[in-house]
């Protein structure tokens, strides 16, 4: 009897020792290399942004920060990797709208659940898209464009950067909201897609800000509207889609940070506050602003809520458009 009691005491003691104290862990964190998983190939805007953040984090925390690019399969490979990573705070996942909100509905079955299997940390930036037109198209405003499209069903070409990309789905949302019939021309990436509009092969595209700004400033493309609810500081003369006559139209390209499931709240909060501090730095702000974006830098719950609403919204549009990836 006595031996059994002491055995139980031993088991209890060992059990108590092994329970990880969430806050205790956060105090000694960070103690080793932090990994930021980027689900794109090096060089894209999101990758560059992640590297900027990584470098700043390294400067402020003194721990090495490594960027791990795991592109492939529309970013699902990276997501799967993150889901299976230990929730010890050393794996961050830099995402954008496509990797999470869109993929959730685009792929019929994913090896993870986009909401439950990740711990949201922060919404980082939001950038609008801009509808740009080739100058030869006889429409000076969005209203005129809609009228033109209605008079010529199936004749106007709208370019996009690939099935399931934000440029594609925004186009689909536009077409279904105003009720026009335009032909989608897919390209592999935003650079070829924008080039196509420049050469006149396609009439228009909902482009990301940097190329849109470059070419409209040079007079090669006509800026029609931005897709955010409010006007963008980088292009103050361009109306929003809502102002231009398409009520309730909103499409924002956003970046965020996620972590593996069940990461302790202490660690999440620590990263969140540090990132917020970094994003307030003037040089970081300047670089992000150069992309035409706005810094969101909210609490983890903001990302969680945003993720949920985005998945719902784009889910409907994806279903309506019939787009799917296998």
């Amino acid at each position: 009897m006595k031996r059994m009691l002491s055995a139980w005491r031993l088991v209890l003691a060992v059990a108590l020792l092994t329970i990880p104290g969430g806050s205790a862990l956060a105090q000694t964190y960070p103690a080793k290399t932090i990994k930021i998983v980027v689900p794109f190939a090096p060089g894209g805007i999101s990758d560059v942004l992640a590297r900027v953040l990584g470098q700043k984090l390294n400067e402020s925390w003194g721990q090495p920060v490594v960027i791990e690019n795991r592109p492939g399969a529309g970013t699902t490979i990276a997501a799967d990797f993150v889901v299976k990573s230990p929730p010890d705070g050393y794996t961050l996942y830099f995402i954008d709208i496509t990797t999470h909100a869109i993929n959730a509905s685009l792929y019929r079955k994913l090896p993870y659940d986009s909401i439950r299997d990740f711990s949201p940390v922060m919404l980082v930036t939001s950038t609008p898209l801009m509808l740009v037109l080739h100058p030869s198209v006889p429409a000076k405003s969005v209203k005129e464009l809609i009228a033109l499209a209605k008079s010529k069903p199936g004749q106007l070409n709208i370019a996009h950067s690939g099935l399931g990309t934000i440029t594609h789905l925004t186009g689909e949302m536009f077409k279904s909201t105003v009720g026009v019939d335009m032909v989608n021309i897919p390209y592999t990436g935003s650079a070829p897609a924008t080039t196509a509009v420049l050469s006149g092969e396609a009439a228009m595209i909902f482009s990301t800000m940097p190329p849109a700004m470059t070419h409209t400033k040079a007079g090669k493309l006509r800026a029609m509207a931005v897709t955010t609810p409010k006007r963008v500081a980088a292009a103050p003369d361009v109306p929003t889609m809502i102002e231009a006559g398409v009520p309730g139209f909103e499409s924002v390209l956003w970046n965020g940070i996620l972590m593996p499931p069940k990461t302790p709240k202490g660690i999440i909060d620590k990263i969140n506050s540090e990132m917020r501090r970094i994003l307030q730095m003037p040089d970081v702000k300047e670089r992000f602003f150069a992309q035409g974006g706005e810094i969101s830098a909210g609490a983890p719950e903001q990302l969680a809520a945003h993720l949920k609403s985005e998945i719902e919204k784009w889910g409907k549009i994806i279903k309506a458009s019939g787009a799917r990836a296998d």
Partner: protein
Amino acid sequence: MAPMGENVKIAIRATKDFFSGLIFIFFGVLVVLVARNYPMGSAVSMGPGYFPTLLGGVLTLLGFIIAARALWVSGEEVKSLALRPLVFVLGANLAFAIMVRSLGLVLATLALVFVSSLGGWEFRLREVTVLALALMALSVGLFVHGLGLPFNVWPQ
């Protein structure tokens, strides 16, 4: 040409072209079979299955022509495959691939050097060990520290 009535044996000359033809036929048929589930579309509005099926068919045809011609035209014989280098060189790659993530760069390099050396002309243990150690040090120094590539150096 043999006179009528005699048994004409078509000798399958195992020439290089014959086997090339077979490989082409193999891939061509494989492609057509896999692609038969993809929607075809039409010539002016191609579906995902159109191009592969077309090409797979052409490849199969080319394969037949090459193989058939090999039966009549004399060509070079195939020399036998050297299995030892083949198995060990590719085996070394596979070992590296399997080991590098879970067991780390150092052990994967070790395995690669040893296995690939087994595929060489001779295997001198001392030499190979020195080479392995040198390459292990080099790979960690150059790839991990120098270029910052995200490798696990040691087993997780």
